[in-house]
């Protein structure tokens, strides 16, 4: 594992060094704290995405499901006057339901994950726009935005959401590497037929992975709403590709069965550092999209080449 995350880690260091030379504001505590705060949404989506990619799948619906979860929880709170915890639970449930639907379509109808999630991505986007009338939901209860609040640690502002993200990474790492259920996720991604023949319930594993990914997207909507303080129907559009980029940059193979979830955290930070650094340099956001596109292709190329090298 140490070796597996070394490459992404060096990439992160290199990116930081580069932007430190380009802007003297980059390496300030204030700015790095901002990078971390901006990274939480992509970071938590990337956990769910890692699970899916480890099984040799892909989830294109991640960002849109996150946006839908955010709209559901903010509209439920504002329109129906639900207390924040119930509205939040409703948003997470809807995201989980989308994940479960993805899982059912992949395992039962046996459709390719790419097509299934391309479909649900559009469905989630459409529902989000229809339900919110493309309007931002404001005046949210205070409780709902609490995760976006910060506290001061050694003079640097730390968001509660950052702590939640780190906790979720720790939990996922433990389950993936230290429990049988986690190892079965790797086995299914590595060689589904072998996994089935040794008696691993491969369909249950896949279904669980997609549903759990939905739950993570739900948590991400919580943080998205918390950070921005509103229910934004146009959230999730950059996060969608950013999360996939983060996972691949973190060393998880798109061919499944290889990778560690901590790598995705590092990948998330790489993406975050690029966005933040380019903004500090005054590069327009269109170029940031361009850079993300190039990054993801480079990461996949590295994955492909290293896989050939291993054979």
């Amino acid at each position: 594992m140490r070796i597996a995350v070394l490459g992404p880690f060096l990439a992160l260091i290199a990116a930081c060094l580069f932007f430190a030379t380009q802007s003297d504001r980059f390496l300030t505590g204030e700015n790095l704290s901002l990078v971390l705060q901006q990274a939480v949404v992509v970071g938590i989506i990337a956990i769910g995405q890692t699970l899916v990619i480890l099984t040799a799948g892909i989830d294109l619906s991640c960002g849109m499901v996150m946006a839908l979860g955010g709209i559901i929880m903010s509209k439920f709170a504002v329109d129906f006057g639900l207390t924040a915890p119930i509205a939040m639970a409703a948003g997470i449930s809807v995201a989980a339901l989308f994940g479960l639907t993805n899982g059912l379509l992949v395992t039962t109808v046996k459709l390719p994950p790419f097509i299934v999630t391309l479909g649900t991505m559009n469905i989630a986007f459409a529902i989000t726009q229809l339900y919110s009338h493309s309007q931002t939901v404001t005046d949210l209860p205070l409780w709902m935005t609490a995760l976006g609040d910060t506290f001061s640690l050694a003079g640097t502002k730390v968001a509660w959401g950052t702590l939640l993200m780190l906790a979720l990474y720790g939990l996922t790492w433990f389950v993936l590497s230290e429990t049988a259920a986690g190892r079965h996720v790797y086995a299914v991604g590595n060689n589904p037929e072998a996994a089935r023949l040794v008696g691993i319930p491969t369909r249950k594993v896949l279904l669980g992975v997609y549903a759990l990914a939905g739950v993570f997207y739900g948590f991400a909507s919580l943080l998205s709403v918390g950070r921005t303080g509103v229910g934004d129907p146009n959230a999730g559009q950059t996060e969608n590709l950013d999360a996939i980029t983060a996972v691949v940059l973190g060393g998880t193979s798109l061919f499944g069965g290889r990778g560690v979830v901590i790598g995705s955290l590092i990948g998330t930070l790489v993406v975050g550092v690029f966005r933040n650094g380019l903004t500090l340099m005054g590069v327009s956001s269109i170029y940031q999209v361009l850079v993300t596109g190039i990054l993801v292709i480079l990461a996949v190329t590295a994955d492909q080449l290293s896989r050939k090298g291993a054979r």
Partner: protein
Amino acid sequence: MNVPTVHPVPDVPAVPVVLQAKNLVKRYGHVTALDGMDFELRADEVLAVIGDNGAGKSTLIKALSGAIVPDAGEIRLDGRLVRFGSPIEARLAGVECCYQDLAVAPAMTVAENLFLGRELRRAGFLGRCLRMLDRQKMIDVAGARMADLQVGIHSMTQTVETLSGGQRQCVAVARAAAFARHVVILDEPTAALGVKEGNMVLELIRRVRDKGLPVVLISHNMPHVFEIADRIHVARLGRRAAVLNPKKLSMSDAVAVMTGATAPENIPAEWQA
């Protein structure tokens, strides 16, 4: 005086039958894969199963290992009637199967592969409540089993993809052998291996048999079959055409039976086992 001579009963040791199948039938739509297949595996033997493509040998193996449920017929393990609804049920009954090419997860370690689907958990709170795996114990047990079978792989923490093809296959065979209590079934374990690596796997199979586990070996490789098998089960058209004694006939004789060039009724008695 006519004293009836007492003929001593020829001293044929009764070799117990470990795994037996009678009249297995399996149809896939219009295709009849098994058409009344019989099967008999004795203790302490390597039984090779040969047959042309479509002769029903892989369907037979799937039925014996629980990967499919036959439409009709019965399977007995140690004389008891069994019905395997899944590979896990067969495994729990002590029948382990190792499938061609499909056996290992390449990016996972040797120890993880050995314990795939039957991982050991830690004792106490960590295992029961946090469901934490006991990595060290799995590594230790895997190392002991591999040493026992004299598979020349010493690091249990290296990933399987770093091993040679022969070593990989040895891991797959060892996994089956390490956990089987009654029967080990190997599907084409030497296919796609070089001469040296194939021999490595054959040596391993011999050691497994010598440890008292009967082995069913499905193979297309006649030299390997003749080198290692004690008896040869010939499948043809979904039935058992014959059980041959490899010491009493040549490879081309066996191929003639397999392809039907020698009809079952024309098989000389001394060929049969």
